[in-house]
């Protein structure tokens, strides 16, 4: 039982990372119907920015985190302005292909920095040990991960419900034409959605950095794990992204705990989420909270 609970808790931590990453992904999808294949690269940009600032410039961790949030948001914003804006009005296929190209491009750019290969870990800034309850021990980094995720989700929740910009973004997601006629700058909202996605990506990257080591490959892999999360939750649902992310994280950890001994070589966590993805696509294609598109001729 305590083994199960332990798996559940560490799954929750992984799941909160996925939830944050998935949130950014869904923000972009809701605003502009673009599936962003470069999300993992944004996460990597965030994580490595924090690392570079902390280790090379010896800045305070929280200050570096703040700068990384801003920097990643700026990169995402520029990416939208430079590469996606020229394609507004083009078939959605080309827009999605551009994000695939961008993923490759950013990958190459990161390879030009010293972060292309190898493992890096942030210097420890939290005390050793952790808290334990019901026989389950939770380390401080893990606790921080969950709290930080909750904080960001609450922040974004507030932003979308209460602020004018958030309302404008929801309006665009709802009906572009109507939003435009009411004076919302759709162009502006697209770029903002990307910037917001950059912020969540950087936060996810930072959390990965505190919980475990960072390397480009695993960060990009998180960008891919976003897909099972958002498909499970429903591609266009923000609560769905969070719930889907957490469920995928937990299931993935349970798979590691219970399926790995059965599979020669182990590593079921890498593939299990994608099996779930295919199953969801077959049996409940719009996920848990996604809206089913009803088409009329």
């Amino acid at each position, binding site marked *: 039982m305590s083994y199960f609970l332990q798996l559940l808790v560490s799954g929750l931590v992984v799941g909160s990372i996925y939830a944050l990453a998935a949130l950014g992904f869904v923000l972009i999808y809701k605003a502009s119907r673009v599936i962003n294949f470069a999300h993992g690269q944004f996460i990597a940009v965030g994580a490595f920015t924090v690392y570079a600032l902390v280790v090379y410039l010896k800045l305070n961790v929280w200050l570096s985190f703040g700068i990384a949030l801003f920097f990643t948001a700026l990169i995402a914003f520029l990416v939208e302005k430079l590469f996606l804006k020229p394609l507004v009005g083009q078939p959605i296929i080309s827009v999605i292909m551009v994000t695939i*190209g961008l993923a490759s491009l950013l990958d190459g750019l990161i390879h030009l920095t010293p972060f292309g290969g190898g493992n890096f870990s942030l210097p420890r800034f939290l005390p050793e040990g952790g808290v334990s309850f019901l026989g389950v021990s939770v380390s401080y980094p893990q606790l921080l991960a969950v709290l930080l995720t909750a904080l960001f989700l609450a922040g974004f929740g507030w932003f979308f419900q209460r602020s004018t910009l958030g309302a404008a973004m929801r309006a665009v997601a709802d009906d572009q034409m109507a939003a435009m006629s009411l004076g919302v700058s759709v162009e502006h909202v697209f770029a903002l959605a990307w910037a917001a996605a950059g912020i969540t990506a950087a936060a996810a990257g930072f959390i990965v950095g505190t919980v475990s080591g960072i390397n480009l490959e695993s960060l990009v892999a998180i960008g891919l794990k976003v897909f099972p999360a958002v498909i499970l939750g429903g591609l266009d649902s923000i609560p769905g992204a969070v719930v889907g992310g957490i469920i995928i994280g937990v299931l993935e950890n349970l798979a590691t705990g219970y399926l790995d001994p059965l599979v020669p070589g182990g590593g079921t966590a890498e593939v299990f989420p994608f099996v779930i993805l295919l199953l969801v696509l077959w049996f409940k294609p719009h996920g848990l909270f996604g809206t089913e598109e009803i088409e009329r001729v």
Partner: protein
Amino acid sequence: MRNPWAQTGNYKTDYRQDTAIFATYLEVLSLWAFLAVLLVLPFFLSRPQMFVLDLILVYALAVLGLNITTGYAGLINIGQAAFVGVGAYTAALLAPSLPFWLTVPIGGLAAAVAGGIVGIPSLRIKHLYLAIATLAFQIIFEWTVGHSTILKQGGAISMPRVEFLGYRVGYKNHYYFWYFVILLVVVVLAFAFRNLLRTRFGRALVAVRDNDRAADAMGMHPGLTKIFAFALGGFYAGVAGALYAYLSRAVVIEDYMLPVSIKFLAMAIVGGLGSLVGSFLGPAFLVLLDLNMEDLANWLKSLGLSYAGVDIASAMRPLTFGLVIVLFLIFEPRGLANWWRLVRNFFRNWPFKY
């Protein structure tokens, strides 16, 4: 008076003439001339050059398949390398017991079945979700190969040398022999590709891409059409994979992973989606670019742009592929095929202006 050698005007009077592939005798002649050049080319090329030529043709096959799913049917496929891999591994498993002229089509069929399975969700959902399904297939494929002892967990499985009608293929004639095999396959499959759009199946693909509700109302089945597109694209990929396995004489998982899928997409985009000529121009462009990448990386190093911990060579590849995809999509979405079209139209009317 109609001139059969140059297009001096629009003389088409019925539908058959409109769907004809060749507008003038000049085009028929140039195609035959091009094929003749391809046939005698090996006698002028060295072994390494032959390898590059073989590689381009094999990639062109995979890109033809991608152009059916993504170009004709409009379904983004991020798992083409996995389909190629299904063909390659099928060939690798069968090669010790069967001759190559059986393993290659069987590899194609295996990949076609895989394509059909990946396409199943299209019975209920639309293209955006399908792109994600192909991504899932790619990852599941990589993992499965990596965990199968029979496939050496992704390590190199060597392919036997082949014998054909008593002709033994050894080190010296390997690339030459496979060149002619691949050329034959490419000509047949390219012929099929070009004529696909003149059949009802091919027209259904395009109709479903452009508006699946309208296609549905006209009596086509959008879901089955998409599954058909995936299966057909998978078949081309599988044949390419089996040929690639024989050509490179080893099957390694690195050749069938996600970055390779992206490379195929880049080739299709650079060439021009849905274009036959583009399916050859794209691979040729990127293979030649890839070959020069190492020189470029060394040149950059010699300029002193390299520093510790950075491997420029491993950065150049994703960087250029990404850049090529993005720039072509923004500035020339119709790809190199469009440039080809402009040149051809010039000669089609020559010496007249229009």
